[in-house]
């Protein structure tokens, strides 16, 4: 299994979103930012504090609590 949370991803590592373990509200807010199942993301930073990812051509900062609920598969 190489499904991990977004937090465990290393900086500069790319991954595909495979699941969002949050409630409907969290899911909707993430969708608004373009973060949903099947999307490719690249982690930019997030050793501490919010996780910053690149998705499409935009960058999004995600609080650690929400980030821990985003399940990704390493590429």
């Amino acid at each position, binding site marked *: 299994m190489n499904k991990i949370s977004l937090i465990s991803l290393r*900086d500069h590592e790319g991954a595909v979103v495979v699941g969002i373990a949050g409630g409907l*509200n969290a899911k*909707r*807010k*993430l*969708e*608004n*930012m*373009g973060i*949903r199942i099947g999307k490719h993301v690249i982690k*930019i*930073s997030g*050793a*501490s*504090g*919010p996780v*910053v990812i690149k998705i*499409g*051509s*935009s*960058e*999004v*900062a*995600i*609080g*650690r*609590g*929400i980030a821990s609920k985003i399940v990704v598969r390493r590429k």
Partner: protein
Amino acid sequence: MKILLVGNPNVGKSVLFSRLTGARVIASNYPGTTVSFTKGRFSFLGINGELIDAPGTYSLNPTSKAEEVAVDLIEESDLIINVIDATNIERNLLLTLEIMQNIKKPLIVALNMWDETKHRGVEIDIARLREMLGIEVAATCGLTGEGIAELIRKIKKAKIPQVERKDIWTFIGTIVSSVQKLHHRHHTFSDVVQEASIRPPWAWVIAAFMVLLSFQTVRFIGEGLINYIFNPLFDNFYTPFIMKLSALIKDGSFLHSILIGQLNNGSIDYAAAFGMLTTGLYVPIAMVLPYVFSFYLILGLLEDFGYLPRLAVLSDRLFHKVGLHGYSIVPMILGFGCNVPGALSIRIFEERREKFIAATLMAVAVPCMAQTSMIIGILGRFGGQYVAIVFFNLFLIWFILGKLLNRLLKGRSPEILVEIPPYRMPSFKALVKKMWIRLRLFFSDALPYVLLGVLLVNILYYLKIIDFFAYIFSPLIKNLWGLPKDSIGALIVGFLRKDVAIGMLRPLGLTIKQLIVSSTVLAVYFPCIATFMVLLRELGVKDMIKSMAVMITTAVVAGSVINLSLSLLGF
């Protein structure tokens, strides 16, 4: 006819709005600049009507007050211009399709930031997009004005979209894959800067540098304007006039004390005289305006460059300790300019608890520029370190009070989820325009209140009302804060204007310790009336009463503790 500009946050709606109406609105490079709507008149191609600039929203299901405003406006409008960030159509199309499926109103799309697509490796087939959406699409660039004429022409061709109800994401997927081509591009210098400024440890170094540099520049420009422009202007051109006037209406008369105030051995000390034509003009123009000007110059640069969201991410952990998330840095930073826009910006937050904490902390511990420049003017004469002590006190109050509120109030800290815009080169014209809006607001909103404040001071003294309150509150003021009882006057006037209030400390001949205590207490105990009105509206009566209780308690406790600790330190 009512036309509405609607779209995701930070796609350039406000810039387009100014282009189309000529009206002046504040635009910046971070999500959430517009929290309320602005209406402007337009008249083109024989159509007259009203154009409305709405706050940004990601979807028709609002998650904050600002988004609610946007969604409500959709209902009221006759025609909708959906503004889309051309470099990011996938995310932006969600709102477009929601509007198409649910709102039966004429709609056109403005594909904004078109100029950025080229250097960001995005290629969009506009004709194909128009065909697939079935509505008019115009490529625009708000900043340069490119494509605006075409957008206007297309308003006439706007029609009610016809769409079948299919799954939105599948539809978006189909559109994106057939109209957008992404070209691979190598890392540019701007990518490197962008990453370095958000990724620790370099991000910390850059943040510390940016904050220090901003602070020093604000000070340098502010001081420079005062010493080399405003003071010489007053001394050389205004003083002779005032002295003539003074001789005309006779020192000692009531009219003299209202207009000119008290002369100091026959000469005029503008900061201490307390006449409407002396202190009433000198305080706002020669003491406050220079700092307001330099603050908004630097803030404008940081906003337009796009640094604020990055600072928000870096301060997220600090803000979590006080029950907020990093984006709460926005109301705090705006509050340093003026607490009114700071209080308005809490609309971008979702939860009541978050709004309450953010608003209270800002009102308590963030002194506005008018107040700050007076603290510098009155206390800074004895040395910059004393001004630093006041700010250090305020930071401690902010932090301790925030920790307490976070612990005492039920609920959890919300989490940050925010788009970080790319860095953009600030446009000189846009910057000047934004400063003009803010400075004009300062003149129209602050100047009358300052004059009113000075008038009030005279009336309060004349009717001996200050003596009355001084008598009642003297135990608190003297025993706990170590201040002379006359300083109650400043606390009364502080409800109206903090700058005038701090100015009132000057003639009292306070010691350094007393100046530090009174400056801190004046910042904490209550917001000025203008901020109060906004907070009352945004928080509601119940939370405002709670917030006021917190403010007053904090002022009493913090004032006493600071007084005691400074005494122990030998001040």
